[in-house]
């Protein structure tokens, strides 16, 4: 494991710009996707295809919230998606983008 690949965990701020971490790969699966971090070799799962679309397109939008809106996540679903993104941030699967 590369010690350099483990920056300190970040608090998730949905009003900030995010992206899929550079050392992370997504593998599509019928239920969503498998997420793999080549640096810390952690494996995770995205349990819906919408969440896959969100993670894939984070980099195209100014904020995480804007990404959720663009992917058609309703107001009611938003807390669940923010929580999922926060979990992904904690496990370094997504990272803050510099504007």
């Amino acid at each position, binding site marked *: *494991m590369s010690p350099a690949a483990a920056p300190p965990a970040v608090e998730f701020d949905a009003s900030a710009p995010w992206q899929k971490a550079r050392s992370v*790969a997504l593998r599509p*699966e019928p239920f969503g996707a*498998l997420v793999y971090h*080549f640096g810390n*070799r952690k*494996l995770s*799962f995205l*349990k819906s295809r919408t969440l896959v679309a969100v993670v894939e397109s984070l980099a195209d939008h100014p904020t995480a919230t804007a990404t959720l809106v663009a992917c058609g996540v309703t107001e009611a679903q938003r807390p669940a998606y923010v929580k999922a993104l926060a979990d992904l941030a904690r496990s370094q699967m997504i990272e803050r983008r510099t504007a």
Partner: protein
Amino acid sequence: MTAVLPARSDRPVGGRLVDQFEYGLDAPICLTWELTYACNLACVHCLSSSGRRDPRELSTAEAEAVIDELQRMQVFYVNVGGGEPTVRPDFWHLLDYAIGHDVGVKFSTNGIKLDKARAQQLARTDYVDVQISLDGATAEVNDAVRGTGSFATATRALENLAEAGMKDFKVSVVVTRENAGQLDDFKALTDRYGAQLRITRFRPSGRGADVWDRLHPTQAQQRELYAWLLANGDQVLTGDSFFHLSALGESLPGLNLCGAGRVVCLIDPVGDVYACPFAIHENFLAGNVRDEGGFQRVWQSSELFADLRNPQTGGACTKCAHFDACRGGCMAAKFFTGLPLDGPDPECVQGYGETALAARDLDLVTPRSSVDHSHKGPVRGQPTLLGIPSIPSKICDESPLAGLDLR
């Protein structure tokens, strides 16, 4: 790449991952790849009946092609084993090739080739994991099943890895009746080298079938193991192999499900693809990586794997209150003890396995694999568990004073 497995109409949308996994994945989460049947040891419980190299084993170029395919399918890591994988002359090349193609490698070895230089090389390599097999926390217990001198070989490898500054290497233990009482000792031994302990379930596969009656843990040991796992589980890896114990109460951490053909499989040294590393038998053979369409076609289109990708809906176990916890246990354990696949695991912790074993026909012949690469002649240090006399490694090892305490 987009998801290619047919989204079967009965696959649930959302819900628990374990329910999704029963319907299979587009590619394995991780697969086991045995690189050779050749092995310097002759462990009595070898799951793949290894010993002699098979002349049909995949060439270097064919192995590279498999790695290319795994990269395309985004199989992010493989468990490499054997046989003893490091005795393949191209082992270190294939290791580098896999890592260079985004396929991480975790390999299992008895330590025979892990000298100081190799240990340093591994310590410098990202994205490789090593696990050293040890089946006793003492030489006495270990060598009885793995052969004279194998404890010394393994601990020398552990010393070399620790000295080289290797991080996160593992000590891999198959839990048997003989070593089930040594779990704390294994933990202490592993801590001493700065390694991590991995314990897995003993199955009646390969030569394991010959010694299963003698070596599989007793019911009392299983209950102790379960308690030990609940107390120590967060620091110990298990390959999620003890899910049958979950029927004792609280679920163990990890995936409580038989992953055979659904999320895991085995590629054997000649390229045959089996549902799981413990199921080397023609009934579980899905195809060969040399076939047209390669591994991907076998994984995604074989009839056998399609059959396995369904939740179990019938059989005695589905009526049991604990079915959701243990999911009927291990397919290979049932098969090689001659039990029906939709019935209880032979080590069912509710006791149904023992009843089922006792109810087998007296003239039942348990299935045996036709794949057997066991050494035919004597092997240096051959284990003595079965009462076969060991061959002294040097004639002077058999001193007339051996065993005498001269102090």
